[in-house]
C-alpha cells in the first residue's frame, strides 16, 4: 500500500527479546522479503534479562514497584533458574546476561538495530559492549534454546 503511494515503509519496530518471540512467526521473514528494516524494543524483556534478578527480586527494581509493567509474578523461581543458566552461557562468551541478550538479537542480519534504554551513561556503555561479540555458534544457540524451553 505504501509502496504504491510512493512512500515505502522504511522500518518496523516490534517488541522482541529471548522472552517474546512472536516476530519469528512470520514477521521477520516478511520484513526480509519486503526489504523493510527491523528495530526491536524491550530487548531485555523489561530488565528481566539482566543480572538484577539472578539473586531474586531486589527492592528497587521495576518488578518490585506496583506501577511498573514488570510485575512480581513475572519473576518465578523457575524463571530465576533459567536466567542463571543463561547467565552461565553469557559468562562463557565473556558477556553479561544483558550483553548476550542484545547480541542474540543482532545475530540476525534482518535486525537493523536494537533499541536500548539507559538510566545512566554507565548503563549505556555497558550495553554497548555487546557489540564485541555478536556471533553465536551452534552449541551456544542450542544451549539457549534448551534453557528457554525448560
Amino acid at each position: 500500500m505504501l509502496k504504491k503511494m510512493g512512500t515505502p515503509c522504511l522500518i518496523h519496530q516490534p517488541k522482541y527479546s529471548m522472552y517474546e518471540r512472536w516476530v519469528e512467526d512470520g514477521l521477520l521473514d516478511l520484513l526480509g522479503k519486503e526489504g523493510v528494516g527491523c528495530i526491536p524494543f524491550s530487548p531485555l524483556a523489561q530488565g528481566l534479562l539482566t543480572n538484577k534478578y539472578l539473586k531474586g527480586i531486589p527492592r528497587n527494581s521495576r518488578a518490585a514497584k506496583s506501577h511498573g509493567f514488570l510485575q512480581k509474578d513475572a519473576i518465578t523461581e523457575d524463571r530465576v533458574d533459567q536466567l542463571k543458566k543463561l547467565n552461565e552461557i553469557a559468562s562463557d562468551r565473556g558477556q553479561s546476561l544483558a550483553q548476550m541478550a542484545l547480541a542474540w538479537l543482532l545475530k540476525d542480519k534482518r535486525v537493523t538495530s536494537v533499541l536500548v534504554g539507559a538510566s545512566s551513561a554507565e548503563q549505556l556503555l555497558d550495553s554497548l559492549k555487546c557489540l564485541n561479540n555478536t556471533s553465536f555458534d551452534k552449541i551456544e544457540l542450542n544451549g539457549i534454546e534448551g534453557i528457554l524451553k525448560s
Partner: protein
Amino acid sequence: MKFSSDRYTQMQYRRCGDSGILLPAISLGLWHNFGDVDDPKVYRKTLHTAFDNGITHFDLANNYGPPPGSAETNFGKILHTDFKDHRDELIISSKAGYTMWDGPYGDWGSKKYLVSSLDQSLKRMKLDYVDIFYHHRPDPDTPLEETMSALDLIVRQGKALYVGISNYKAPEAKKPFIC
C-alpha cells in the same frame, strides 16, 4: 559541545532494509529516563555518551515521559544546545498511535490524530521534520488506507523523511508493505 572525533569508528552501521539509510547496531530509546520525573543532568550525559560512541539514532514517541510529551520537550532542549551543529548526523524518530490527549482525536490511527500529533511533536522538539515517523500500533477500526495515506501525506508535507510501523503483527503488516 565537542564530541569524540573517532565516534564513527566505534559503531557498526547496518543498512535499514533496502533503503539508503544506515542505522547504528545499537540505538537509544527514550521511552523511559527522559521525562520530567528524571534528572536532566543524568539524561544529558546519557545523550552525550550515546553520540560519542556512534549512536546516531534517538527514538521517541509523542507519549514518552512521564508526563506524556515531556521526553520530546526535554530531548529538544538538549538537541538545540549541545547538538545544534549535529542535526544532520542524527536520525530522530517519533510516533503516534497510543492515547495522547482527551477526546476522540487523540488516539489510534485517524489522519486527524496522526497529522496533528506529529505537529505537536515537532513543536515540542522545535524541529522542522523528524527522520522517521511511525504509526505506533495497529488500529482495528480505522481503514488501513486512511492511516497509510496519513503517513504518505506527512512525508509529502516534509514533516518526516521516512515512515514506519510499530507493533503490527505479520498479517497486519503485510498490506502496508506489499503493493
